[in-house]
Every structure is written in structure tokens, then in C-alpha cells.
């Protein structure tokens, strides 16, 4: 009996026509003139194709409701052909020889060229290959197809996954999609199984033909047998992983269908396609199967109708018959599906985020500043942090972004007046000290993350918390000068919050100050932080009453590489030290130098005013006082942030984290 090749085609891919439809309605029926269904049908009498049939010869039902066939046309619509070739290795072979890559490519190229020579200029072709991965060698393209660029082969077999990918291809209106696959039918790594593939094939718009490569199966079995028995190899000599082995047919003659094969064959035939295995001495080939399919296609019919009396969405079962002759074999698509749900609109980024969802959406869209601003105004940061913890990682492929967002969320928390909110913010940061660790060891992001957190915590003047994080950072990056500086600043903050800031402090306070001094001294040899360490050390020594040492340290400060704040503080502190040394004129010069760097900063102005007054220059002092009174409370003064350590650099550090998290 000749092989019956079924034609089909739900050529109008209704999913693609959604844009032309009114809004979704579950009970909506079809509208005449807008939703056209086309069904390819082949009619045979025995081995012969039946031609010359018209609309009145066919009866077509859609979900059991007879439909009016508007036209019957020769199937001249362009074809989208997906060829699937199996290049996977022999899963049972103990030993695999080196295979010449160029030969594999040439063989595939030759076979594909044979197929493309049959196609018409209006047809298109794409090529998928089965191996460890689903490979799309080329996407859909006009014939003749481009040369094969690169192909992987001899690996595990993702048969079901590749066939599923081929079958789920969307079909354009007025084109038909044909899938011709040639495989050994031995799946070893697919994510889906034969049952799932059957479900897809039954709902696919593609005409699906499957060719079983019995010759290749035979060759694989013979090679395995030879290597095992003759050479005595009892295991794979390389690549020994075999996640599973699911066969469509048995491994040797007569290559009987196994349960997975039955499932796939049933799906292939339900979809109007064909299952091709050797019969006698006739072995099906990719080209031969396509040629046969193509010829059948050209001689088939395309029925066109507009569904009436049926609910639009959901699955539609189609039945086509030619009542006048019971001897005809009619093959057509068994149905089609319509998805009526409109795609969800992309969420818009809120101008002022309020909920966690708002914040993550805005942050993911790069609206960092609006997120940071809104977070500082949020009434209940604790709840937001709790939601963040409960809802999990919003960006699983971008863990750096999540780690950055955690700092943003924690920022209002660490400055909160409520102890429990502060504690929760610290717990959040603490959790991320684990989550930011990279599998192989500390990396540049982790370093920057810690730096950003340390600059933030310095701003809170909460030395115990700062010390915990500084120690953790140093455990990961033991020689990082910025982290050593953070620890020194924590000790300095602790000394002043403990009341040791006054000159002639108690013995234990002196000990604490001495500890801080040693930490700053150790940093002087580290260029990245030496200047700041010197400025802070000088101020510490001044507090300890060691004014000459303080002045010496300030004189050593290399001005140029310093940021504005440090340059200002250097002059301001010089002025204070000069005053303590009884050099008011020099102090005045220093204050003026500080004022030149930050004209709006109040501390230098006040010091200058006091100095002038002390020297009897009342008029000069009054002039300065007037300037001070005109200043706004928002004007920045580096002195005001001195005890907040490197918090002044938090914005810069956070900007870098945001950039790294993109």
C-alpha cells in the first residue's frame, strides 16, 4: 500500500491575527470576514490523488458545527519548511573516533541542497539540528539557503526538545508550515518527554513528518557490538554521562515501535503528517520524504471557511469528509486552537514608587534616583524590607542588581530613629554579605559592595555596626586600605561617642585614642587612603593635645589628589592647631584658605570670625558674621560630616554599584 501523505494547514494562524480583533470575550463568536480558517486536505483513492473536487464535494465541521466552505483552491500557498536533522552521537558506543567536522557539514549541506532544489522561490526554509542542544542552524529564510556556518554533533540527543521547538513555530497567515524530521529516535537529554511532544504535535499548526534513521541505528548497534566484543571495551572511553535513554523504536531489526514511539506516531498522524520507517528494502530518506510530501501538497486542496456558530476561543476540532465517495481517504488537520487572551500590557514605571513592586520595577528600569528619593520618604521602611525578604529575588539573572537594591532599601533603615528598623536594615545587609559571595572567591563587585556599605554605615555613626561589617569586609579583602580606614574610623567614632574627644581625657580614653592613632598611622603607607589618614590622624593628635605632631601630619598631606572636603578640612584643622599653638595670624591664613575651597561652609567662617575678634578686628569679624548669617542651612560644610567618615563618598560608591548591576 502506498504511503498516504496528508495535507493540512491551518494556514491562517489565528493567534497572529489577534491585533485585528475586538477585545477578548470568552463567549465571543467568529465574525464573518475577519477570521478565516484555511485547511489543507489531501484526498486519495487508493494510491491515486483525487483531483477536480469543489466546495460542494466536502463536508467540514468545526467543533461539530457544519461550516460553509467559501472556496476550494489549489494549494499554491508558499511553504515554510523546517528541516530537522539528527546529529547526535551513538549513546551506546564505548569509543568514538574523531569525526571530521568539515565532512559532517558537507554532508548536511548536500542533503539540504537536495531539498531546497525542490522548493519554489516563494518558499522558505529553516534548519534545526538535534544534538546536546537544540540548534537552529538558520532561521527561516528564502531559498536557496545560506551555507551552514557551524554545527555541533556527536553529543547527547535532545530529540523531543528539538521537535517541540520545530512544531511550536508560529505560522504566518497564508503560509503553511511543514516539519520534516529525520532522527534515530533515541533521546538522551531532552527536558520534555514523548507524552509532552505528542500534546504539542496535536495542537501544532505544522504538518509533521518523521523519518526514522534505521540505517544509522543499525550502524550504531553494530559499532557498539564490535567495540564491546572484539576490543573488549566495557564502558565508554569518553563522555560517559547518559541522563536517560528514551527510544521511539527498538535498537535492532525490525525496529519495533516502543511506547514513546507509539505516542509520537499517534501525534504525527493526528496532525495529518506521516511516520516513515523502512518497508522491505525501501528506506525512507529526508529528501525522498520531502519530495513525496511536497508533491502531495501540490495536488491537494485548500478549503477556506469563516467559522460560524462556534465559540471563538479554545480548541476547535475539525472533521473533513467527502460524502459522495466512501472509498476516498481524506487527510486533514484535526483541529486548531485560538488564544483569546490579550497579552498583558507592559507595566509602566511609576513616577513615585510606593510599594515594593513599584520600587523593583523602577529600579529594574534604571530609575535609580527616583527610587532613592522615594525610599528616603517612605513611612515604613521596615515593611518594605520585610516584603523584599519574603518575595525573593526580583532579578534572578542579575544578582548584583539585587545586592545593590538591598543597600538602597537599607539606607533609610540604618538612619531610622527606631531601633528595630535599624536592626532590620542591618540584618538585611548582613544577609547579603553571604549572598554576594561568588563561587570562586571574592571579586570586584563584592569589594565595591562592601565599600558602599561601609561608606553608608560610617554615616550612621554607629561604630559597633560599622566594626562588624568592616571586619567582615576585611576577612574577605584583608589588605584593602579603604576597609582598614573604615575600621579606624569606627574606632575613632567609638572614641568620641564614648566621651574621649576632650583633651586631657581619662586614662582609658587615652588608651582608646592611642589605639585609633596606631590604626591611622598604619594607613599612612597606603597611597589610596594616606591623605585622609593623615588629616584624621592630625585631628586626633590635636584632640590628644599633641599639636606639633598634628601640624606635622597636616603638612605632609599631599594636596592635589585630595577631594574638596579633605582639602578644606586640612586647612580648617591647620587653623585650629595654629590657634592651639598660639599662632593666630597663621590660623587666620589657614581659615581663609579653607574658605577659598568651600566658600559656603560655615565652620571656617566662624573660626575666622572668632580669630578676627580675638585679634581686635571687630569690623572684620562683623563682616564675616554678616556673611555667615546670609548663608543657607542647606549649604554644605565638610566639617559637619567629619564624624561621618567617608559617608560623603556614598553617592559615588552607590552609583558604581548601580552601574555594575545593570
Amino acid at each position: 500500500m502506498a504511503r498516504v501523505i496528508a495535507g493540512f494547514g491551518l494556514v491562517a494562524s489565528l493567534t497572529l491575527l489577534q491585533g485585528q480583533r475586538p477585545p477578548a470575550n470568552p463567549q465571543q463568536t467568529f465574525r464573518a470576514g475577519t477570521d478565516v480558517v484555511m485547511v489543507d486536505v489531501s484526498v486519495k483513492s487508493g494510491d491515486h490523488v483525487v483531483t477536480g473536487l469543489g466546495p460542494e464535494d466536502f463536508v467540514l465541521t468545526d467543533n461539530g458545527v457544519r461550516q460553509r466552505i467559501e472556496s476550494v483552491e489549489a494549494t499554491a500557498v508558499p511553504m515554510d519548511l523546517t528541516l530537522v536533522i539528527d546529529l547526535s552521537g551513538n549513546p551506546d558506543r564505548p569509543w568514538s573516533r574523531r569525526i571530521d567536522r568539515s565532512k559532517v557539514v558537507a554532508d548536511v549541506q548536500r542533503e539540504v541542497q537536495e531539498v531546497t532544489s525542490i522548493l519554489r522561490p516563494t518558499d522558505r526554509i529553516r534548519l534545526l539540528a538535534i544534538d546536546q542542544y537544540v540548534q537552529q542552524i538558520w532561521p527561516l529564510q528564502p531559498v536557496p539557503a545560506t551555507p551552514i556556518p557551524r554545527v555541533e554533533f556527536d553529543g547527547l540527543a535532545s530529540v523531543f526538545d528539538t521537535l517541540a521547538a520545530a512544531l511550536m513555530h508560529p505560522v504566518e497567515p497564508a503560509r503553511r508550515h511543514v516539519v520534516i524530521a529525520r532522527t534515530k529516535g533515541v533521546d538522551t537529554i531532552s527536558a520534555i518527554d514523548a507524552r509532552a511532544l505528542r500534546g504539542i504535535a496535536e495542537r501544532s499548526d505544522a504538518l509533521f513528518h518523521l523519518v526514522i534513521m534505521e540505517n544509522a541505528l543499525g550502524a550504531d548497534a553494530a559499532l557498539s557490538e564490535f567495540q564491546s566484543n572484539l576490543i573488549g571495551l566495557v564502558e565508554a572511553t569518553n563522555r560517559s554521562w547518559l541522563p536517560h535513554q528514551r527510544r521511539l523504536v527498538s535498537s535492532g531489526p525490525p525496529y519495533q515501535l516502543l511506547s514513546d514511539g507509539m505516542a509520537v506516531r499517534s501525534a504525527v498522524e493526528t496532525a495529518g503528517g506521516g511516520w516513515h520507517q523502512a518497508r522491505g528494502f525501501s528506506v525512507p530518506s529526508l529528501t525522498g520524504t520531502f519530495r513525496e510530501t511536497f508533491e502531495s501538497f501540490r495536488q491537494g486542496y485548500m478549503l477556506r471557511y469563516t467559522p460560524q456558530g462556534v465559540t471563538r476561543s479554545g480548541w476547535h476540532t475539525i472533521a473533513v469528509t467527502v460524502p459522495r465517495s466512501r472509498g476516498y481517504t481524506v487527510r486533514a488537520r484535526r483541529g486548531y486552537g485560538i488564544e483569546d487572551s490579550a497579552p498583558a500590557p507592559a507595566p509602566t514605571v511609576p513616577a513615585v514608587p510606593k510599594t515594593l513592586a513599584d520600587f523593583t520595577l523602577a529600579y529594574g528600569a534604571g530609575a535609580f534616583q527616583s527610587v532613592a528619593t522615594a525610599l528616603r520618604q517612605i513611612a515604613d521602611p521596615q515593611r518594605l524590607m520585610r516584603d523584599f525578604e519574603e518575595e525573593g529575588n526580583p532579578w534572578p539573572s542579575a544578582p548584583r542588581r539585587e545586592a545593590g537594591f538591598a543597600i538602597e532599601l537599607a539606607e533609610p533603615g540604618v538612619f531610622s530613629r527606631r531601633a528595630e528598623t535599624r536592626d532590620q536594615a542591618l540584618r538585611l545587609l548582613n544577609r547579603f554579605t553571604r549572598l554576594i559571595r561568588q563561587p570562586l572567591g571574592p571579586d570586584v563587585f563584592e569589594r565595591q559592595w562592601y565599600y558602599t556599605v561601609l561608606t553608608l554605615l560610617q554615616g550612621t555613626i554607629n561604630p559597633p555596626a560599622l566594626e562588624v561589617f568592616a571586619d567582615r569586609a576585611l576577612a574577605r579583602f584583608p589588605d584593602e586600605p579603604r576597609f582598614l580606614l573604615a575600621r579606624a574610623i569606627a574606632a575613632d567614632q567609638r572614641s568620641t561617642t564614648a566621651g574621649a574627644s576632650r583633651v586631657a581625657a581619662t586614662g582609658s580614653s587615652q588608651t582608646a585614642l592611642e589605639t585609633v592613632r596606631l590604626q591611622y598611622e598604619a594607613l599612612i603607607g597606603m597611597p589610596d587612603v594616606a591623605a585622609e589618614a593623615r588629616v584624621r590622624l592630625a585631628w586626633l593628635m590635636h584632640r590628644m593635645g599633641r599639636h606639633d605632631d598634628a601640624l606635622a601630619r597636616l603638612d605632609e598631606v599631599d594636596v592635589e589628589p585630595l577631594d574638596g572636603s579633605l582639602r578644606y578640612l586640612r586647612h580648617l584643622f591647620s587653623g585650629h592647631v595654629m590657634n592651639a599653638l598660639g599662632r593666630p595670624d597663621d590660623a587666620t591664613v589657614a581659615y581663609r584658605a579653607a574658605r577659598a575651597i568651600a566658600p559656603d561652609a560655615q565652620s571656617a567662617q566662624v573660626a575666622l570670625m572668632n580669630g578676627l575678634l580675638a585679634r581686635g578686628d571687630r569690623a572684620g569679624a562683623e563682616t564675616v558674621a554678616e556673611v555667615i548669617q546670609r548663608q543657607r542651612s542647606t549649604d554644605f560644610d565638610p566639617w559637619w560630616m567629619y564624624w561621618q567618615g567617608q559617608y560623603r563618598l556614598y553617592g559615588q560608591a552607590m552609583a558604581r554599584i548601580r552601574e555594575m548591576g545593570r
Partner: protein
Amino acid sequence: MQFRRLCCLWLVVGACLVAGPAAARRATVVDLLDRYGSGQFDPVVAELARVTDFDDLLQQLKREAPAWLDANGPADRDRRELVAATFALEAARADEWYEWVWIQSQPGVAVTVMYWKPPPLLIEWGCQLMRAHEPPRPIERWWQLAALAVAQRSEDSRFLVGDVRIGRAGEIINVQDEIKHLDHVMKRFPAESRFVLAQGIARDRYWEDDARTAYAAVANDVDVGGEASMRLGALHVKHERFGEAILQFDRAETLTRDPYVIYLARYFKGRVLEENSRSDEALDEYRGAAAAWPTGQAATVSLAALLFRNGRRAEAHEQIGRMLAAAPNAFDPWREYVHADNRFWPQLIGRLRAEIRR
């Protein structure tokens, strides 16, 4: 027996006749070492890809490398050792998918004999160079991690932990030839949790109880606890202990943000849920997995297949279209599951090369 040996001999002779002349034209090992040491990494790797006789390469290395290591004086000796050991890794990697080990039964006697092929011997040769230093140099940790990546990519556990059939049919008799690479690495880096995890991965397919023990030992480790939990969950799935599996997958999510681990935990969880007819939850997990690793084919196909069968074709099309459009052979953690640390190869070899350039 003689007939069989004759056949083997002919195979070997035939291979030599084909490969010999081509190999003879290739650069010598000393030349390759010089070039590799001078920073010409990619050209040397390309050259290695054309080599067919790695036995010869290994012999050359053993014969000529000692003099080469000393040729630049003691000051350059350590660097040259790293060059040679890293070159050996590159060579092993170039050949490992063609040959690794032969396990041959001997006719007439019920014994099985193991013959290592060049790639594991190359790694071991490099490892000996590294092990000559006590205590281990910091760069050795990176070299051993890279060696582990190469060994895991080979899919063979025998090299790492010994005969996988010990106590069973097919057990090898030449145990003196076992390498058990991980044993001596563990001695040198007892605190390195990745090597403990590797013990579990190597035993996963053969000695599940031992694998479970190894995973449990590092289940709370800050660096590998997430991956250990995920792999433990996968073992539970194998035995259909779905509840325990899900607990481990959820646990993995709390321990790490490594997208590779998150992807696999979610993908496996999706499979469990789908298997138990909890399709909507499975969809969420597959979606989550695809979000964690957008080029992961296993989760993408699983997601699209479920969507398609549920009539949500547009979303399925979108998923598949994106997957196919991705770069050819985009990395899928499931398809590389046993290759484990091979995913770090670019970082590891980059670190070693940077050290060589110094």
C-alpha cells in the same frame, strides 16, 4: 585472545599511519611551551586542537619539559612550572572529548583492566609539578580548581575518586594505576569547600549515599551550600522523594544567588511539580528558571511546552523564538549538569594566564 590483541594492534598501527605524518609536522612541545609562556595562549590552544597524537605530546612533555623548566634559571622556575602545568591542562581539555580512559575486559578471564589515555595523565603530570611546593602556593588553588573543571567536563568520576565499580561486577584489577586526583587535592586544600562538593558530584551517579554525605557536609557552607542543596534535591528527585527534593530546592534559593544554582533548583522543582500535575506552579518555576538563566534550553522548552499545551501559544512562541535566536549553543545548566565547575573555565584559565603574564 591473540586475535583480539592483533586487532587492537592493527587499530593502533592504522591510527599511527594516518595521524603520524601530520603530527610530525606540528610544532614541538618546547616550542609550544615557549609560545604559551610568552602569552600566545589562543594560538597554542588552536594548535592543540589540531593535534591527534596526545600520547606523543605527553611523552614529549615528560621528556623535554624538565630541561625547559630550568632553562631560564631559578628566578623563572616557578612561573615556568605554572606555564607547563597550565599547558598540560589545555592539552587535556583539547583531547578529553575524544579519549579519556579504556576499561577493557580480558577475554577468558573475568577481569577488567583500566588504561588511562593522555588527558588524565596530562592533568596528573601538571598536578605533580604543582604538588612539589610545600606549602601550596596561592596560584595552586586556582590551578587545582581549573584541573577539577577539566576533569568534571570529561564526565568521568574514576579519575577523581577511583574505580566507580569497586565491589561490583566490572571492578578493575589494576588498582595500583588509580589516580584519585581529589584525594591528593583535598590533602593540600582541606578547607576548600568546592573540593568537598566535587567529592559529592563525582559520586552522585554511582554511590549515592556517599554523595549525600558529601553534600550534607557542605550544605551550610557559605560558598557551596546552595549548590550542595540543589544537587541533593536532584538526588531525591531521582528516587521520587518529591517532598524532600522541594525542601532542598527551596533551601538552595535561600543560600545563594548563583544563577546557575537558582536555575537548576527551579527547573528541577518545576519538573517535580509537573510530574505531580501541579501545572500552574510548575509554570511559575519554569518561568523563574528561565528568568534566572535566559538561555537555558531545558527550562525554556519545558515552559513553552506547558504553555502551548494549555493553549497559550503566543507566549510559547515567544519563548521558543527567543531561545532559538540566542547564540548557537548557549549554555544550559541542565545540559552541562555533570560538567559542574567547567562553567568556571573562562575565569579559571583567565586567572592562570594572568599569573603567567606577570
